[in-house]
């Protein structure tokens, strides 16, 4: 096997991993706070992609500048979904939660189908054509910028959770909702904020990846499943785990594409998922017994 090819696979996998990390960070935040698995996660991401596409085609805004607007729109969507629907089923059994979130996913997917049609789209950005050569390996500038922005957003979220008042309330409600309620936290609002932020993360991830990855309304469910993979591998509810898991899964898939075949790259992540589920269900970075 050509070492240049492996190096290339490693690098592009690592850079693409930023997007995976951001998706997983959003999912793990929602799960960590509410213990609700967001089956609509991938469809929210698809909406982030289409919003970036609209900004680019209608207003000429580059997705690398417009991703903030997409994140803000998804924040509102996530907030509304939590306030309108999810808060009713926070304490419901698993299958009820899954069914509700699948329903939300189907509504989002088919709304996208009505609004944008079934054909795959891709956002044009001048950055996608740019490459930089590092010796024999080339660096895709779009992926590099995506990675940098995803990393910055994750760090900003970490800072927000660690240092700000609302961030601390979110963590308190995640640790012990009853305790948080007792000391005067409006847990309902905190939940809505957490769901909104989780949706904003995946919306930003969608906007950032829209020039690299073609998208269509039907792609949401597989993006959700990809997010689940990463979060389980990294450790459910762990921010560091989600970030590291994103990079790990992306590199593993990229190497799988090099060693097996591009169409078999997901085989690697699903096999990894099964191994983690069986031998370390708390994930690589999760605490045991959670």
């Amino acid at each position, binding site marked *: 096997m050509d070492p240049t090819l492996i190096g290339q696979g490693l690098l592009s996998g690592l850079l693409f991993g930023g997007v995976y990390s951001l998706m997983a960070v959003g999912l793990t935040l929602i799960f960590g706070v509410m213990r609700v*698995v967001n089956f609509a996660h991938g469809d929210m991401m698809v909406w982030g992609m289409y919003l970036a596409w609209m900004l680019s085609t209608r207003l000429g805004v580059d997705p690398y500048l417009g991703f903030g607007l997409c994140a803000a729109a998804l924040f509102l969507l996530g907030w509304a979904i939590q306030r309108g*629907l999810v808060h*009713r*089923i926070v304490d*419901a*059994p*698993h*299958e*009820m*939660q*899954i*069914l*509700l979130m*699948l*329903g*939300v996913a*189907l*509504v989002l*997917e*088919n*709304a996208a*189908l*009505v609004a944008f*049609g*079934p054909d795959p789209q891709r956002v044009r950005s001048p950055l996608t054509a740019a490459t930089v050569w590092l010796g024999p390996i080339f660096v895709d500038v779009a992926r590099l910028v995506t990675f940098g922005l995803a990393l910055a957003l994750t760090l900003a979220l970490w800072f927000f959770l660690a240092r700000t008042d609302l961030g601390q309330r979110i963590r308190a409600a995640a640790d012990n909702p009853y305790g948080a309620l007792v000391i005067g936290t409006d847990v309902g609002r905190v939940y809505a904020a957490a769901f909104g932020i989780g949706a904003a993360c995946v919306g930003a991830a969608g906007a950032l990846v829209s020039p690299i990855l073609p998208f269509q309304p039907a792609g949401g*469910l*597989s993006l959700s*499943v990809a997010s*689940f*993979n990463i979060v*389980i591998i990294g450790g459910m509810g762990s921010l560091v785990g989600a970030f590291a898991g994103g990079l790990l899964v992306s590199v593993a898939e990229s190497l799988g594409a090099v060693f097996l*075949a591009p*169409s*078999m790259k*997901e*085989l690697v992540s*699903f*096999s990894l*998922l*099964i191994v983690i*589920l*069986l*031998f370390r*269900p708390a994930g690589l970075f999760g605490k045991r017994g959670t």
Partner: protein
Amino acid sequence: MRGGGIAALLAVAMLAALPAVLSSYAVTVFIFIFFYAYLGQAWNIVGGYAGQLSAGHAAFVGVGAYTSAMLSMTLGLTPWIGMFVGGLLSAALGALIGFLGFRFGLRGFYFVLLTVAFAEICRIVALNTDAVGGALGLYIGFTGNPRQFQFQDNRVYYYVALALMLAATGLVAVLERRRFGEYLRAIREDENACEALGVNTFKYKMLAMVLSSFLTGIGGTFYAYYLFSLQPNSVFGIPLSVEIIIRPIVGGAGTVLGPILGSFILSPLGEILPHLSLAGRLERAAPDRLRAPAHRGGAVLPPGGLSDFN
């Protein structure tokens, strides 16, 4: 009880007589109602009664479908036998998934993901195996020969699908009243308590999984020989798994009639709504878009599904 038995007999007699008056298209709608009710009933054993949410049941449909189709194409084996071979292979896959999931104590969402992962691996392997058609899939030539599980008359498929649904429902109705059914429900309600009372929960969960995957695998043959084409993305895909799950949950998971009720509500919606909508893109989008709120209603309103109402 006697009243229920008479009502059931009347309903069956009515369904048996129905093709005489139905249009050919309406017969097709009923075939899908029965077939999805059958798959939902098979899922119901492990997902509804035992409470082990499998979101990868498409894998069993796919294994069953590919097995009988390949056996017929390469060895000339009639699908009437192939369907049982497919069922057994699906049961073997179900046993593997069940063994790993239950032995390693995966519950709730973790078990859901394990089943999804296995179904996706099956899909990717089928997609990349040229011997079973790869990404193009398998196409079955139409002969109309009943020995090949093919029928000139759509109404024969109607009766086959009806028989599948009734057989699975009868089986579930019998199991429900036996000790086996009681154990499964006890496992769903409180697995730890069940274990503490000395019930071998692993054994009963395994039995439920194997039976459920066997029945689902048999359904795969019907899928193959009714639709005449098998594509990895549709027959192993997550959307089919979701279709299998939503009917029993909306109708009432863990009840005998839940999957049938759910299928009578949801299956026709997907067929009828496209004809009511007005134009172009809406036509494709409408069924799911309008079905989705129905799923949500199922989750938010009656917690035990719609059959809780009666």
